[in-house]
């Protein structure tokens, strides 16, 4: 090798390395890398109770470090003989969107950008084209004359397309009918979002931001633990409330009583009565997802 070609070669190599370093410079802002424990964590279903306990303590520590609030993270298990069903009275809903915001507050969704699980469609009376439903309506007061409102959220299907397409089995249906996501296993491919016919899933395209004082410290692993960027999330019927016998946040806040929730396996429950006695329909019946979310009319 001649002196000349050596000099030329090493100059080119140095320039290459410098260009590479400049290209990778943004990685300095990556912040604290994910912990080894988090990286090595197993799938939810493969965690022993002792492992789960460790994971929950770790999440509590992480949340405390990030938000300065000591949360109470638990892994609520489904109850035997319970299958949750939601019924929503389309005649009564006035489109106030209180449920949307109660949901965001309860489930620690990102506030900026705001992630909402519930969309309220405004449609003219006499029509029923959900694709043309207006979700961005902003009148002085609701309800507006000549329109009706139809909230849409995860339908917790009995035959869910979203769980079938997941390449890593990070989402599945629990025995009580709630379709959940293991946020610590999801790789963020957004296949489930493409598969869902109800547009129920939401992706964390950027790092979620929640003001410290707005954090709900009562958390569940499969429910409202704070998510990281790059994972999917969706309505889970407020798993941290419903699995201990409380109503979902959206139901509690509804001023018109349009929302009904209960155990369909119990014949004396409110939802069982509605399904027996009212005019009930499901959204997009023709796609065969068998939702556990029903709409009904008063008439």
């Amino acid at each position, binding site marked *: 090798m001649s002196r000349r070609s050596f000099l030329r*070669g090493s100059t080119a190599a140095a320039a*290459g390395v410098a*260009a*590479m370093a*400049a*290209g*990778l*410079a*943004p*990685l300095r*802002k*990556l*912040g604290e890398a*994910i912990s080894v424990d988090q*990286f090595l964590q197993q799938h939810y279903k493969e965690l022993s109770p002792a492992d789960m306990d460790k994971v929950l303590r770790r999440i509590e520590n992480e949340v405390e470090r990030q938000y300065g609030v000591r949360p109470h993270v638990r892994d609520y298990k489904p109850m035997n003989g319970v299958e949750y069903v939601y019924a929503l009275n389309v005649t009564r809903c006035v489109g106030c969107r209180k449920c949307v915001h109660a949901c965001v507050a309860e489930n620690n969704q990102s506030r900026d*950008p705001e992630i909402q699980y519930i969309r309220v469609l405004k449609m003219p009376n006499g029509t029923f084209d959900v694709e043309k439903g207006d979700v961005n309506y902003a009148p002085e007061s609701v309800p507006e004359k000549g329109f009706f409102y139809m909230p849409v959220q995860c339908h917790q299907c009995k035959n869910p397309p979203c769980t079938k397409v997941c390449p*890593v089995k990070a989402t599945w249906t629990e025995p009580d009918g709630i379709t959940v996501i293991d946020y610590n*296993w*999801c*790789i*963020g*491919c*957004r296949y489930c*979002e*493409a598969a869902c016919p109800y*547009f129920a*899933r*939401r*992706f*964390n*395209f*950027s*790092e979620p931001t929640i003001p410290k004082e707005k954090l709900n410290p009562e958390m569940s692993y499969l429910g409202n633990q704070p998510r*990281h*960027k*790059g*994972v*999917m999330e969706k309505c889970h019927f407020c798993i941290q409330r419903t699995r201990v016998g409380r109503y979902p946040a959206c139901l509690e806040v509804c001023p018109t009583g349009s929302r009904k929730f209960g155990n369909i396996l119990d014949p004396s429950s409110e939802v069982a009565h509605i399904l027996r006695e009212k005019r009930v329909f499901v959204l997009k019946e023709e796609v065969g997802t068998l939702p556990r979310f029903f709409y009904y009319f008063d008439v």
Partner: protein
Amino acid sequence: MIAAARKYSRFVGRCLACLFEGDWRYFLWVGALAAICALGLNAYARQLVHGLAITGMTDHVSWGVYIANFTFLVGVAAAAVMLVIPVYIYHNEDLHDLVIFGELLAVAAILMCLAFVTVDLGRPERF
């Protein structure tokens, strides 16, 4: 065994040496391509820091150019490999040389496919 390994490493060494043979036009071209690679690397580093939001994708358009390119290149790779059909079924000897290029194109396209799916993931480290 050792002789084979030595032979192979010499082969790899010569291949690498081939990369640095050429006149100024060659180096200009390779340099320009390397600059584009560096830009892509920079864009991906920024995406890792800020999340997929900087690609402009939203919940409504959750798959974008990444997935479009991925599916396109899968087709390119498959088609390039399929060039062997006229050669080996219809015994078209003239196409032998072209098959080699087809395989090279397929390998390149598959590498790009892998890269495109990986950059599309929200949590690539878990993949």
